[in-house]
């Protein structure tokens, strides 16, 4: 999926089932070389809220930017490697990342709470009364 033109490396692609878009910028030895190496995340819900947990090892809250737009939660930041030692082997990914997760409009973004602990960013949003209603669909 790499662009052959070095100055526009990176790209955008839609994930299956409308689960959002991921943007990644990479370089030959410095960056998220594959989509599967983007910060991974879980999305869960209970009756009252939706919670997103994203893996951001080594990052603190000051390195992360969380925004909400049109029913999508977007997390972006930069993961930097601690330099100064000679690297012999690398599996970890570094560089800028941006992930957008559509969560729907029935969430109250003003209720959003985010914490970053042990390398996991946790964001929870309360459901609006409309979002709490379970809708039953009649099957003919």
């Amino acid at each position, binding site marked *: 999926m790499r662009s052959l033109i070095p100055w526009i490396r990176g790209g955008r692609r839609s994930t299956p089932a409308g689960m959002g878009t991921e943007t990644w910028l990479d370089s030959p030895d410095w960056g998220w070389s594959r989509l599967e190496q983007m910060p991974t*995340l879980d999305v869960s*819900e209970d009756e009252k809220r939706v919670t997103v947990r994203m893996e951001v090892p080594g990052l603190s809250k000051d390195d992360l930017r969380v925004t909400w737009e049109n029913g999508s939660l977007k997390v972006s930041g930069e993961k930097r490697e601690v330099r100064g030692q000679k690297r012999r082997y690398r*599996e970890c990914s570094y560089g800028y990342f941006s992930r957008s997760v559509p969560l729907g409009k029935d969430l109250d973004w003003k209720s959003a709470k985010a914490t970053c602990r042990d390398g996991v960013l946790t964001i929870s949003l309360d459901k609006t009364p409309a979002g709490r209603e379970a809708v039953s669909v009649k099957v003919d």
Partner: protein
Amino acid sequence: MLWDTDPWKELDRMRQEIDGILGRTHHGISRRFPPINIYDAGDDIVVSAELPGMSKDQVNVTYSDGVLTLAGERRDPERALEGYSMLRQERPVGRFEKSFEIPTKIDPGKISARFRSGIMTINLAKAEEAKPKTIPITVA
């Protein structure tokens, strides 16, 4: 020999790659977990492993005969809560075990580890004979 790598090691590496692509192995979660980097810090070899959401007592680090092993089990207690459902699940959970060879002779009595922001950093002191030496040159 045309190249100096051990063909058996190369085969094992290929198998691990394939296991990685397939995602899971009979050992539990992917052999790729956790991703690691290895650095040469002069007198020490430094291994860093990304284990977001885990704490030091959940990871077992052992060193034997030139091979470092990281093992443990990653759980997400919230997944078991009642009324909780996962909408998207990318973060691996389950048992893992990852072994890799340390490329330098080290002193097994001098291994230390610390855990911060989901990153475990393991310091392995090089054996005396493997440490870089400065040879003083006397100018006559």
